[in-house]
């Protein structure tokens, strides 16, 4: 069984769990994801791996309550078990194929939004350990929702925080922060953005102005996560790819974000759609 050995509430409605899954912990790499099932009647829920401890045989996941499935995850307590935890799934981040010599000469920028901060962490940690220079932008709605600040600052060179309401760090969106950094003359070999699909779309539009190479991690719908169902179909450079086996990371400039966002809503009930008020001015 997949026991929760540690649970921590990072913010209102956001919880971190360290879960026993020895085989998975042994083989996980930055950029990969896993799938959990809370109980016999539960959905298979894909979550990005936020950390792994090969010695302890544990993996760390972070979940935000957005619907009934994520609520069930966050309602599990320390000592309780998931029915299933399977992975690692997907391709690891490309940089794990680079030698330390190459990585030492590189400078990376990570642009994380909200919950996306958690999956950025293992990538930043890995690169930092290999000697790469890494800057990180964390964006959140407000101060309460800024997560992983302490952990991140321990493994990156410069940490930039911004909030939509200005309650912490700089007031504004991650795209504003990105523009500021570029305007200040910062040069990066590679940027990586993880967050809500809509944020990644706008980061891509901004990064394009600076010719900044950018990778995004797509959190699509999935059932099995191994290439069986095709629910995660995304259009990359005009070709259909499966995010679960070909991704989840792709070259941002090749992603059809509008299609990806539409497909995310495939199983969202009409009521939820009607109930949802867009806070960032879309659909007006």
């Amino acid at each position: 069984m997949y026991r929760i050995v540690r649970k921590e509430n990072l913010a209102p409605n956001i919880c971190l769990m360290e879960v026993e899954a020895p085989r998975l912990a042994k083989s996980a790499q930055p950029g990969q994801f896993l799938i959990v099932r809370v109980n016999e009647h539960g959905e298979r829920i894909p979550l990005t791996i936020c950390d792994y401890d090969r010695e302890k045989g544990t993996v760390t996941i972070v979940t935000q309550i957005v619907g009934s499935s994520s609520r069930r995850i966050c309602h599990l307590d320390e000592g309780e078990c998931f029915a299933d935890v399977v992975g690692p799934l997907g391709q690891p981040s490309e940089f794990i194929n680079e030698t330390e010599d190459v990585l030492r000469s590189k400078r990376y920028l990570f642009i994380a939004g909200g919950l996306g901060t958690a999956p950025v962490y293992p990538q930043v940690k890995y690169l930092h350990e290999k000697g790469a220079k890494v800057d990180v932008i964390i964006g959140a709605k407000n101060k309460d929702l800024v997560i992983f600040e302490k952990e991140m600052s321990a493994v990156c060179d410069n940490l930039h925080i911004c909030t939509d309401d200005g309650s912490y760090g700089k007031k504004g969106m991650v795209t504003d922060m990105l523009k500021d950094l570029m305007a200040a003359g910062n040069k990066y070999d590679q940027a990586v953005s993880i967050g809500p699909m809509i944020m990644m779309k706008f980061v891509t539009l901004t990064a394009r102005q600076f010719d900044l190479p950018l990778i995004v991690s797509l959190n699509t719908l999935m059932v099995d996560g191994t290439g069986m169902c095709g629910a995660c179909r995304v259009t990359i450079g005009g070709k259909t790819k499966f995010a679960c086996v070909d991704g989840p990371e792709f070259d941002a400039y090749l992603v059809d974000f509008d299609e990806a966002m539409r497909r995310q809503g495939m199983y969202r009930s009409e009521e939820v759609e009607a109930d949802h008020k867009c806070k960032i001015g879309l659909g007006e």
Partner: protein
Amino acid sequence: MANKIDRVPVREQAPAVRARNFDEVCYGYSVEEAMLEATRCLGCKNPMCMTACPVSVKIPSFISFVKEGKFAEAAGVIAQDSSLPAICGRVCPQESQCEGSCILGKKGQPVAIGKLERFVADWCRDNGVKTHAEIRRNGIKVAVIGSGPSGLACASDLAKMGYDVTIFEVLHKAGGVLEYGIPEFRLPKEKVVKPEIENVKALGVKIETDVVVGRTVTIDSLMHDEGFKAVYIASGAGLPKFMNIPGENLNGVVSANEFLTRNNLMKAYDPDYDTPIYVGRKVVVVGGGNVAMDAARTALRLGSEVTIVYRRTEKELPARAEEVHHAKEEGIVFRMLSNPVEILGNDKGWVKGIRCIRMELGEPDASGRRSPVPVEGSEFDIETDVVIMALGTSPNPLIASTTPGLEMNRKGCIVADEDGATTREYVFAGGDAVTGAATVILAMGAGRKAAAAIDKKLKNNN
């Protein structure tokens, strides 16, 4: 002397009733019906039925026991060659195998071999009769990748020979296509699949779920770090095919794999489960195989009006005859000689229809079937909210791509010989992973052959 009566009909749920539930369509024979049907068997000296069976079940022999009412003995005969009789009796394409070769079929109806096999297996389960012999364990570890029909067949044979077998399954439940693919109304999960898997476990076979071979572990890590002396890859053909036509990524277009997995493995039809499923008012299923029939009949049961679009004629439908017959009885509309060219969407990106072109049959192709040719200018639209693509599947390349020295062919199938030996020593493969999508029974046959070959290889080595 055989009884010259007509084939005993099998009782089924009425079409109008079953079109609204997920209970099994066919009730199967009663004791009396089975014993009566068994009297029709001629008991041929050279049984053609047995030759046509991919695992060579001794058909006349088990039927003669059924005739005498000795059902446990009949089960013993079947068990010598098949480890999943309750399943095979339900899903084998009998009309092209055993029953297709039955001598009675030349002038009339063949013996209902499939229904008799199913009866024997169901009777044993309901009466708690076990068919297992005593096993002498040798402690040699063998890994089986995948718990579908091929993996289960191989594992149970190896376990009977004494091997310490572990099956690694990627999903959260064992059974492979028996769980995620074939629907409840054709193959009940709790009643039929689960007990068959429990039988395999009773032989000492361990099943570890949630293991992605190629990611969580690799063939090499299993052999080098975990002490497995041989591996049988039975990972099936799980990757769905799409047509690459415009509109295929619209909301409302799903693979049959996704639709069936949500409904079968994830039980979307059961309100106690959290699984969402998108039920269209109208559904078009593209394809003519068993998977297409399963998807169509599932959509029907969820409340949709269903049309099957197939590019050849009824004669070429690759599905089992019984499934096509059942689908028609239930009210599914077949649009033959039609091939989709585009899926049409509304301004929000949801499916609103499918554009097809009429086809006509031309020259026979490599498969011997006359290949369909489009009739120019004959496009027509069908209004629909959902399109389910059931065009076949291909093997997942994950294992081959993470196992150095394991050769794949151009179709993504693992290269293996008759006995399942691959290009890597001690690594065997069979079932759909080698042949591409085929049938449960062929996969089982491959599993049994590979078990014998693995035994030979490991014995020669010691």
